[in-house]
Every structure is written in structure tokens, then in C-alpha cells.
């Protein structure tokens, strides 16, 4: 049963999305090796750095939007 489901579904849906296709696992391993070679830091450090980079962007945009709103209010007065 499992084999039948797998064969049928895989042939029907075994495809990847153009705009958000999942990344090739081989490419992931290659990227990880390269990052390890270049940076030489621990996985925890990389997670923290990438997490900070990712969270800094929305915080920055929100801060700029708030500043803009304050400016707009001042100009209106």
C-alpha cells in the first residue's frame, strides 16, 4: 500500500516550486562546508548572527516607519 501511494503520488506531485522550490540537500551541504571553512566559528554563533540579521531588518523598518509617522504629524501641525 505504502509503495503504491508513494509511486502514484510521487509521479503526480514529485515537483518543485519555481518561486519557493525547496533547496537541494546537496547544495545545503556544500553551503555549510563553505561557511565552516570560511568562518571557522561554531554553529551556535552562526545561528545567533543570522538570527540577529534576520530580526534586525523588521525592527529597523518598524523604527523608520514610526519616525516617518512622527515627522508627518509634525508637518501637519
Amino acid at each position: 500500500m505504502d509503495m503504491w501511494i508513494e509511486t502514484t503520488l510521487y509521479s503526480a506531485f514529485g515537483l518543485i516550486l519555481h518561486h519557493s522550490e525547496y533547496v537541494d540537500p546537496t547544495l545545503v551541504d556544500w553551503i555549510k562546508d563553505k561557511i565552516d571553512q570560511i568562518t571557522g566559528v561554531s554553529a551556535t554563533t552562526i545561528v545567533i548572527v543570522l538570527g540577529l540579521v534576520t530580526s534586525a531588518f523588521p525592527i529597523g523598518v518598524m523604527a523608520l516607519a514610526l519616525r516617518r509617522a512622527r515627522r508627518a504629524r509634525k508637518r501637519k501641525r
Partner: protein
Amino acid sequence: MANGQNSPKTNDPGGVFYGWYIVAAMFFTSLIGVGSRQGFGVFVKVWEEDFGTSVGMISVAAGIGWTVNGLVQPIAGSLTDRFGGRRVMIVGSIGMALATIGVGFMPNVYGLIVMYGFVLSALAGGAFGTPTTSVISRWFQRNRGRAISFVMAGGSAGGLIMVPFAAYLLVISDWRTAWFVLGGMIFLFGVPLIVGIVRDDPADMGLEPDGGSDGNPDQPNLMPLQIRVAPLETTHWRDSIHSAPLWQLSVAFWVCGITTGMIAVHFVRWAESEDISAGTAALAFGVLSVINGAGLIFVGWISDYMPRKNLLGIVYLVRAGAFLALIFLPGQAALWSFAVLGGMSWLATVPMTNGLTADIYGLRNIGMINGLIMMSHQLGGGAAVIAAGVVFDVWGTYDAAFVAGFATLVLAGVVSFSINESKYSIRYQKPVPITPNVATAASDGD
């Protein structure tokens, strides 16, 4: 709309036009949303062991997700037209965050298929994609191509940031924790950004598309308020089915789906058949992704200064050249030629297709029409992936599939060039200065 009777301001009192803040917010939602979906590939090996299943079965979840996401686009578009893109994006992103966390609870591969393939992929259709481009089309007219390309570039950036993030998260924790963290990030950062920043229409803030007038903040009232109505804007989206540009754009975007879907799935397998290592092929595909980001922004930017349909035609022909390289050049030369030519044209079709749709059909039913065109793309991709697989199984080579890809791309190029943009695009219509009667008609029309 912006040109109604309430005389909205022709310039943004806050300095930088507010539409660019919306672009920044949507760039981030694309980054985190597309990035976390691309991160799916990071977990394939660990799921294979943990669920005791095959890579093929895990790929089914991704494949169903692809199809569901495509089928949801017209629904998301219809909801966007009815309730506004902001509401659809808020509900979509909250649901997507919860479903991403939900993936971390799945006990087996069937749970993964349901949660990722159906629930998460359907909700992702509301978080980004059709609602995003529809809102951007309302905020931008002159800079529409550039604005859409920046939002789309968020997806490319997402692959560069979120995929390594997910990979290293998996090193220091387990796959369930990694999905909780990814879902938490969407909830903590993506949702507040949409709620706090995204607005459906510039008129909601008393602004005009592109910041009004000439876009020059020092001369806000240089030009009088004017009305331009998209030539094929209709009361109901069904009426647009009888017009040529919808079919021309859908056929071309269907070819886009055929050629990108075929390559996304079969590229590494083709490379192995040419005695190129999977690692080298994966690297070439990575190079393609990086060139793609740059190409996307460049093409989106120049599409605001020249006829979009010509640029769209050129992009399809460049991609046809990439397929020609696959057919005639030997292994490594074909690989790298394709990476460069394919990268230049990979996502560049999106800002021009969405831009032309809004230019021709206006904003009233933009969500639904964008959704229909997007669906043609996804269906083309699905069919091509299966067809290319069959071709390889029967002949032991992808040549016939690549020849078909080349032929359809030439067709897409010709079809794109044949769009009568000067007749149907709002960009080529003469503005009508607002008089009280015209203004009333315009606001009635909205």
C-alpha cells in the same frame, strides 16, 4: 481611489514615499516566507531517518504543496479583491506561522503531507504571492516593475539567509525545534510588520500612487490631479476572459512555469547524466540563484522606462538561449552557460507579467486576474516536470524535453511581443484632467 473627490495629497508628508515602506515590509515577508519554504530541503535527510520513509515520499509533501499553492492563488486573489490584501496577508501570515510550528508536531510523513503540503502551502498563498503583488500594484504605477522586483528579491534573499539558518539550527537542535523557531520568527517579525505597515491603498493614507505628481517631493503640486483608467478594467473579472492580453500573458507565464519547473527538478539529474557531479550542478544552480536576484532587480527597474512586453519577450528569448546551450554545448560549458543565461531570466518574468496585468486590467479585479495567471504558471510547471521525467525514462536523455522547452520559450517570446501594450496599457493612455463630473464618475467606478 486616489483620484477621487477627497483631493488626496499629491506628496507624502513623511518624506520617503510610504509605498517603499510597504515594499520593505513585503520584502521581509517574502524573505522569511519563501526562505522557510526553501528550507524544507534541509530536513529531507533527517526526516528520511526519523519517519523511516523515502526521499520520494517526502518530496510528495513538497509536490502537493506546489500544486495547492498554485490552486490557492485565484482564491487568494478573489479574497484580496473583496477584503483587501492587508487582511488576506494578516490571516495568511498568522496561519502560516501556526502551520510552520505545526510541522514540528508531525508524527509521520503523512502528517507532514497534510500539514506542509495542504495547510501550510494553502496559507502561504495568502501570506505572499498574489495579495502582495496586488497591493504593490495599487501603491505604484510608474515604479510598479521596480517595486514588484524588490519584493520578489526578498524570496531570493530568503534562500541565502534562511536556508543556512535552518541548516545550522538543525545542527544545534533537532528538526522539531527548528520548525518551532521558524514559525516563531514569522509570528514575531512577519505578522507585526504586515499589521503595522501594510495598507491596501494609498488613498487610505491620503496619498497617491508613486507619491503623486512627478514623484518630486519639492514640487508636490506641479501637475494637476488626473484620471487614467486601465483600458480593459471591467466590473467583473469574468469579462476579462474574453480579452486577448489575459490569454497572451497566461500562455507566456505557462511557458515560464514549464521551463523553470523542468529545470528546478531535473537539473541535477541532467548534470549527472552528463558526468557532472551533483555538487557542481548544485553549485551552478546556486550561481543561477544569485544572478537571478541581480537580474530581477535590474529588469524590474528598466521595465518602468520601456515597454514591458518587449522586455518580457527578450527575457523569454534569453531563457530560450539558455535552453539552446543545454542542447548544443558539451557538459560543463552547457552547465555554466545555462547558469548565467538562466539566472538572468529566472524570476525576471514576474515583475513584468504582474506589472502588465495591472497596467492593462487596472486594480478592481487585480487579485483574481493575477491569481489566474499565476495558476497557469503552476499548472505548466507541474505538467512539464512529469513530461520531462517520462522523456528521460524513455530516451535516456533530456534532449527532447529541452528542445520542447526551447520551442515553447520562443513561442512565449513571440506571444509577449505581440501584446498590444500601446493600445491596452494604462501607461500609454492620455491623462484626463479632473473635472467635477469626471471625478464623480471615477469615484463611482471605484
